[in-house]
């Protein structure tokens, strides 16, 4: 069954149809929120808020874009509102920004040394990402989710594709330059 058919059934009162839509898109919605918030717990809350908002506004979905794009747009805006919200500022003040970003366990791969090196690099990247301006960081992380290409990101962020490509390239350039200073290109 297509997304459009599920939307029609959900609008007719079939809550389970909306549940199916949640299951189909929850990963992409969560990752978009994570790209904006960089905090899994907050991203999870934002994803839930986004689905609830989508359910309330479901009748306003005209089918002009795919349901996935519509849903990701809602998720992105919900995450941005949360990012700008006062609760996040208070949390940052209380935690002094020192709360470590919990990272998923790294595949051990060939050796424990490699895993340790990857974990260290991930820590550096996370820290450097926090210093990037959001106009560079957002498209870089959205692209890194693998859920959307430049055209979809352009619709999501309201920025031309060419500008997005430049911002992603500039974000990567800045990150690599700082990583090089940390010795990552000298091995």
């Amino acid at each position, binding site marked *: 069954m297509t997304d459009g058919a599920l939307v029609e059934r959900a609008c007719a009162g079939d*809550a389970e149809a*909306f*549940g199916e839509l*949640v*299951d189909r898109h*929850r*990963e992409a919605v*969560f*990752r978009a929120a*994570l*790209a904006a918030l*960089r905090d*899994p717990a907050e*991203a*999870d809350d934002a*994803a*839930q808020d986004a*689905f*609830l908002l989508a*359910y*309330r506004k479901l009748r306003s979905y005209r089918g002009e874009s795919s349901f996935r794009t519509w849903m990701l747009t809602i998720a992105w805006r919900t995450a941005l509102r949360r990012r700008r919200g006062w609760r996040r500022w208070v949390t940052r003040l209380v935690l002094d920004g020192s709360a470590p*970003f919990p*990272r*998923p366990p*790294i595949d051990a791969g060939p050796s424990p040394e490699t895993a340790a090196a*990857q974990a260290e*690099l*991930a820590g*550096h*990247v*996370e820290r450097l*990402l926090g210093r990037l301006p959001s106009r560079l960081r957002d498209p*870089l*992380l959205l692209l*890194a*989710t*693998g859920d959307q290409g430049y055209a979809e990101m352009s619709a999501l962020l309201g920025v031309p594709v060419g500008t997005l490509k430049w911002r992603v390239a500039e974000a*990567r350039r800045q*990150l*690599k330059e700082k*990583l*090089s200073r940390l010795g*990552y*290109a*000298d*091995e």
Partner: protein
Amino acid sequence: MSDPRRRRAALDDELDAALARTVRRAGRTDLRARVMASVAQGPPSAGQPLVLWTAVAAAGVVAAMIAAHSLRGPAAPLERTANETPAATAAPVLPSPGPAAHTLAPARPARTAAIRPDRPRLANGNPPLDGATDEGAALVIDPLEQPSPPIVPLHTDALAIVPLAIDDVGSLSSEDRP
């Protein structure tokens, strides 16, 4: 890995992997259950009372701010505004010299010192500006007296000009001057 190009490529790969580890992650698997539980709780309008009360509270805060502002009264005239520079407000405010002040040249104290005691004076005790006495006779100008700046009165009423021009400025102490 000594080739710089290969090192840069390796850094690219490492960066891609680190970015993917940052955002390509799975959320909690119970998201559907949580969303459906909220959906089942009620119609979409369930959240509106909170919005309404928030709006009412915000309006109350604004009204209180307006009331506090009106009770405080208008701002003092010498309060510094955002556009004023500290230098502009540091100068003391002098009493207004009146409408005739702009008719005189600025170097008034030097002229005051050059006035002789025996020089004819007007009825109010001040020397005339244009050579006229109370009787209308011409004033004899001492050729050895230092020339004073030209005076170009804009008003014909010299009696209104003189007291303010010479006495007020000349009586200012050094602390009064800006």
